[in-house]
């Protein structure tokens, strides 16, 4: 997508290596203010690493290069104090397993208050009152008393609500939700997703939803990026991606999806498996699993424009759409 002014977040050629092994191989991505963007792809495709790298949350063993700009300000080379202000302030992140994502020896209220103190300068009774308000906002019943319990005394769904309350504490412009419902029961999943959708609209914040589940992403997001082996391979408005997927990988993912209605499944039905990151094929990483692979696929594919806001990294993309 093109932005006249700077987008809220702009990733350019973001790359990550662990001990020399590439995990992310040049990700370009813009997130506009208030926009909801989905990030899908098989396990290990680099969805989490993208955002951990963007926020400087990877261990020091990770070699990160490229550019991460927040409203035009470069974050990758930024001093630690800048990152501390951004994290949980302008950009908040929630994670997959809420039970282990909260400090087990600290009361949940105190963990929310810590964020309020850091980003809103609140303390004492004011912080507690605001934490209680946030708990009510995310739908934790009996909020006043729930502030004083420990994570193990709450269910997984309640813990994820605490995580969301904590993320909202800094009034973020962007919330990155990394598979926020994978660890939860189906009914709880739907509730948490509804909550995220509601909050995104009410608070006008941008949302990046990372998921295995194309169906979930289509429901929640206006734009979807598909990742494969450390790269974005296709990006399109949600309806377009579903109606006219251009990359063979995306087509495979959609074919593996049962129906738009009915129970959702994990994306597994493409034959073959993701190449090992230390043993990537030259050119297109999907070629070994692709029915349509030709010699042309031995060179790294460029993005082709498939329509407004729709790009795909496949030399055969145009023919595929025609076909």
């Amino acid at each position, binding site marked *: 997508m093109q932005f006249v002014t700077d987008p809220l977040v702009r990733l350019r050629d973001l790359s990550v290596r662990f001990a020399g092994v590439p995990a992310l191989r040049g990700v370009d991505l813009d997130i506009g203010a208030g926009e909801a963007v989905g990030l899908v792809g098989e396990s290990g495709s680099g969805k989490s690493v993208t955002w951990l790298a963007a926020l400087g*949350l990877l261990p020091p063993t990770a070699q990160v290069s490229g550019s991460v700009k927040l409203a035009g300000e470069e974050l990758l080379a930024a001093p630690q104090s800048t990152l501390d202000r951004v994290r949980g302030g302008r950009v908040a992140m929630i994670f997959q397993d809420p039970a282990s*994502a909260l400090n*087990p020896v600290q009361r949940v209220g105190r963990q929310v208050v810590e964020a309020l103190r850091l980003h809103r300068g609140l303390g004492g009774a004011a912080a507690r009152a605001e934490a209680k308000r946030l708990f009510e906002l995310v739908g934790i019943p009996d909020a006043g008393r729930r502030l004083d319990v*420990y994570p193990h005394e709450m269910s997984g769904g309640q813990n994820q609500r605490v995580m969301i309350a904590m993320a909202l504490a800094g009034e973020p412009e962007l919330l990155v939700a990394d598979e926020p419902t994978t660890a939860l029961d189906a009914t709880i999943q739907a509730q948490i997703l509804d909550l995220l959708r509601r909050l995104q609209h009410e608070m006008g914040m941008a949302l990046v939803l990372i998921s295995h589940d194309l169906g979930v992403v289509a429901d929640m997001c206006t734009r979807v990026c598909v990742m494969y082996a450390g790269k974005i391979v296709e990006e399109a408005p949600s309806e377009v991606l579903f109606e006219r997927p251009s990359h063979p990988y995306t087509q495979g993912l959609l074919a593996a999806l049962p129906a738009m209605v009915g129970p959702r499944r994990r994306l597994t039905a493409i034959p073959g498996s993701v190449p090992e990151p230390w043993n990537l094929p030259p050119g297109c990483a999907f070629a070994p699993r692709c029915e349509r692979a030709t010699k042309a696929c031995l060179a790294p594919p460029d993005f082709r424009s498939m329509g407004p806001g729709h790009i795909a990294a496949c030399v055969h993309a145009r023919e595929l759409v025609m076909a």
Partner: protein
Amino acid sequence: MLRYLALRLARAALTIVLVVTFAFVVLRLSGDPALIIMSPEAPVEAIEAFRHAWGLDQPIWVQYLDYFRAIAHGDLGVSFRDGRPAIELVSERIPATLALTIPALMLKLGVGIPAGIHAALHRNSTSDRLVMAGAVAGFTVPSFVLGLLLVLLFSVQLGWLPSGGQESWRSMILPVITLGFGGAGVLARFTRSAMLEVLGQPYIRTASAKGVPWRQVVRGHALPNAAIPTVTVVGFMVGSLIAGAVVVESVFSWPGVGRLLVVAVSNRDLAVVQCILLLVASTMVASNLVVDLLYGVLDPRLRAGATAGAH
């Protein structure tokens, strides 16, 4: 909670009974005190009289029951050697032992824990490798070897510090270092691995992701969690304040409980040996109890377990 405490106390008491029983059995079966204490040429009648006077002619289970009955009345017996109450002999040695073991404990805590934290926070750095090398040396070199090396260097070669005795505070330096070094190594290693384990947990990433500065992540989130396993080791060290200096006291001829134990064992001075073992077992058990209670303070998950167990 009360039932949990009662259960803990009962278990503690049982541990002490087992230790004392074990000591009683081993010491009685490994040699006749009468033969060791009386000179070998003593007439048979004198030996018999000694046995009778100390109840050694009774069946062993009678001796055992008598012994327990006495303990229950607070009577820990009388030394075969000089007829003084065992408890007196032992208690007058305790200050000397604590004078070594408490500073040594400070050394272990003050060096081991910070070194372990530092090593974990700077994993694979030169300082991490140095700390780990020191730690391995600390707990692989036996304390008598380290003690003798220190004596050779600082007393014999350099003549800076006394090699033994209890003349001044300077006599304490070498034994305290000898005692503290190994423990500091153990603690450094333990703290390091506890910290590494905790630093890899998702909630540490959560804290960073919400903008908590790293120092505060370490202080407010990592340390309180890493303290939980570390407390076990510290508790063990506190528990060995009395008994942990046997070897070092012998090397440095330090007149503490450990030396008394060595002498009493070789003399088969049963009352004294048993009194010391009882003391050692009690401190161990008491510190274990404190550790258990501390777990409850440090880890709310266990607190819940404890109260759940009480219902």
